């Protein structure tokens, strides 16, 4: 620490060069922050709230529905606390571009998904309104919906019994997702399965459900219960596949394409370039300062402390640029998310990203400092002062 001012002075010996390098590093870590947010947006994992939930879907296809009669048998499986169900509605609002993540859900759905926090009085109104719907905070903001609004949603799949594809809904509640809820929870639209069944032109929706949600009595039962539920329908024409909600979400995200792989490939290219660039700057800086380093050694600095000083210089450079870059990403990410109009749900830069970022800064800093530092350590005072 007592050498900090020395390292600092060395770093800003040539202001322009350090400044340029800092901007390159800043750009790299800005990109790192934004891409990591994108990756996080597509991997809904990490949410601890849903660990005690299972999703039961058709084994053969996501579009096949399951018999409603299965619910009572699933309920009887030991370890199952409650069984809810939901159906995909495929709603759009006014324009096909305004896609709404809308679901017809069973009455106990809100008890199973406790991260959907609805004020008790709104919950009451919702329960007593046949065409009532509750919407996430962000979704309501996106379309300017308020409690009490009548909202028509068009289903891309289900017409009403009178042939009309537009379903009227009453917004009776606006919920906020609890802390730790999966990313995008505040973008959803829920309404009564009962309304969906009664008004639907497709008669069979009354006897089928899209998928089941199972709340477990304890999360460590997941495997056993999943197997038991799948055994209920084994060898029937509606075999099921039950998995934890996290596994279900992960497999869905994977289908969009390997976002993680693309992000890592880009980051690989960026950091490789960064190492080369900063390494070159460091090498230049040390070469220029050969004389000064020799003087330092002459007046008694050990080879070891010279090594440490040059290493620290690299690390300091990276940390300065990196922290600025990540901070800038922290500012920009919410703006980008807002600008995309709800299309891209970028979570804010989290602790995990910061930790990973700082580890990268330290590692790259040490890496780029290493060669020049070793060179500085091995410096022969006589040769260096003589300019050989």
């Amino acid at each position, binding site marked *: 620490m007592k050498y900090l001012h020395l390292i600092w002075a060395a770093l800003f010996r040539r202001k*322009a*060069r350090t400044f*340029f*390098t800092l*901007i*390159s*590093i*800043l*750009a*790299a870590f*800005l*990109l790192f922050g*934004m*891409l990591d947010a*994108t990756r996080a947006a597509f991997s809904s994992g990490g949410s601890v709230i849903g660990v005690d939930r299972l999703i039961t879907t058709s*084994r*053969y*296809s*996501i*579009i*096949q529905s399951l018999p409603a009669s299965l619910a009572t048998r699933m309920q009887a499986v030991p370890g199952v606390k409650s069984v809810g169900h939901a159906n995909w509605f*495929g709603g759009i609002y006014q324009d*096909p571009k305004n896609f709404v993540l809308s679901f017809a859900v069973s009455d106990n759905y809100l008890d199973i998904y406790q991260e959907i926090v609805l004020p008790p009085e709104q919950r009451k109104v919702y329960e007593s309104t046949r065409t009532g719907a509750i919407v996430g905070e962000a979704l309501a903001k996106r379309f300017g919906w308020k409690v009490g609004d009548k909202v028509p949603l*068009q289903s*891309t*799949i289900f017409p009403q019994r009178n*042939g009309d*594809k537009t379903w009227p809904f009453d917004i009776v509640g606006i919920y906020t997702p609890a802390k730790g809820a999966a990313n995008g929870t505040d973008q959803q639209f829920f309404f009564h399965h009962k309304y969906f069944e009664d008004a639907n032109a497709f008669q069979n929706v009354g006897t089928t459900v899209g998928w089941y949600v199972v709340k477990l009595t304890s999360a460590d039962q997941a495997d056993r219960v999943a197997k038991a539920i799948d055994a209920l329908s084994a060898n*029937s*024409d*509606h*075999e099921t*596949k039950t998995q934890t909600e996290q596994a279900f979400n992960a*497999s869905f995200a*994977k*289908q*969009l*394409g390997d976002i993680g792989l693309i992000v890592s*490939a*880009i980051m690989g*290219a*960026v950091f*490789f*370039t*960064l190492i*080369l*660039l900063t390494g*070159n*700057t460091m*090498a*230049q800086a040390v070469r220029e300062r050969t004389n000064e380093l020799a003087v330092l050694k002459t007046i008694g600095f050990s080879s070891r402390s010279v090594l440490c000083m040059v290493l620290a210089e690299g690390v300091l450079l990276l940390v300065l640029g990196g922290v600025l870059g990540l901070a800038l990403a922290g500012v920009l990410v919410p703006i980008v998310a807002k600008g995309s109009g709800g*299309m*891209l749900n970028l979570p804010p830069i989290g602790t995990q990203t910061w930790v990973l970022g700082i580890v990268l800064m330290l590692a790259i800093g040490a890496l780029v400092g290493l060669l020049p530092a070793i060179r500085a350590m091995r410096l022969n005072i006589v040769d260096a002062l003589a300019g050989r």
Partner: protein
Amino acid sequence: MKSAKKFGTGVLTLLVIAAFLAVWIALPWPGVVALAVVLALWMALTRRGRQTWEVTKVGLATVTQRLGSSSVVVVGIAGVVGVLVAMLAMSEGFAETLRSTGNEHTAIVLRGGSQAELNSILDRDSANVVIQAPGVKKDAKGRPIASGELVVVANLPRKGDPTSDSNVPIRGVSEDVWSLRDQVKIVEGRKFQPGLRELIVGKGAKAQFEGLDVGKSIRLAGQTWTVVGAFESKDALESELWGDTQSVASAYRRGSSVQSVTVLLDSPKAFDAFKASLVADPRLKVDVSTTREYFGKQSEGLTKVLRAVGITVGIIMAIGAVFGALNTMFAAIQARAREIATLRAIGFRGVPVVVSVMLETMLLALLGGIVGAGIVWIIFNGYTASTLGANFSQVVFRFHVSGELLWTGIKWALAIGFIGGLFPALRAARVPVTTALREL
């Protein structure tokens, strides 16, 4: 006074850069070639130009002595160009796959407001009305050429990951499909037989998903189906598995309804009449579009997102690369400060010095651009990937690194080189000769 002048030149330089970028983005390749020719002629024919060439030669000759720092420019720019071209190639490949799936002489009819086949349903009567509509081409026997189709989605594991689930589209097609979609060629095995539980698989699907080799059996809707052939169509259909409409309908209990009807039109001009007659028909509530329009629309959203991401990432990386290049070139002119000062002392003017430094940077940038674009071309051209498409199922597509994209990459590289070279070049020309000679 002095600082005001300095500020003025700074603003001027920024304006030059802005103007250059604006012109550069709009410039087509003949313009760039013309620019290069003009530059070459200037260097060959005028005195100033020849001086420039001499100075540049010295600069280039010393590049080998500065290999480390010069390679920073090359690699930095190669990185920018590589990432940019790869992202654009992905977006382009996806758009192209879907675009080429459709054409102007076939039309697709869906239930009104459905947007994708998966959501649509047409009962047998409606489907028949569509098939009999005017403008549909008739075969030799006078029967209209049309295919009533079903699209269902099956869960199949991705290759190399047996526990994963991917939504794979299965299309039930009628016999007319072979004349309707003449781009489809059987490349292995044979066609499926109507009435049997037989499937043919697209080449893309076969490559991406497990267990789709000819002769193998898969379980669909609780029944066993046999893969009897593989087909190639070089478009989005290759992501699909095809069977007979009736067999698929009975397996998935769809009765006699279909999800879409695709018809062959007499000619692209017949589309308007065909559409008008269906829209006017009180028995129907349908959406009619040419297949080109239908499939083209499906790629719009994702293509836009990929382009936006590619360009944003490209710009941020380019900023990093510009500053890398600045560092390198400032160091380069500093190393040559005495030499440049000497040149100016013996009568070389500013222009040759400026142009030679810029030329050197831009040559390095060009090399970087070629390396970056080349690597992406070698690795990614034709690379197969898949994502979720409009039918809630996987669309297999190939990255397409087109000549145009390579050109875009090289243009970016040169623009980065221009900006990265301009400031050091101006500095080199402006440092007072006496100061530079005294330095070191």
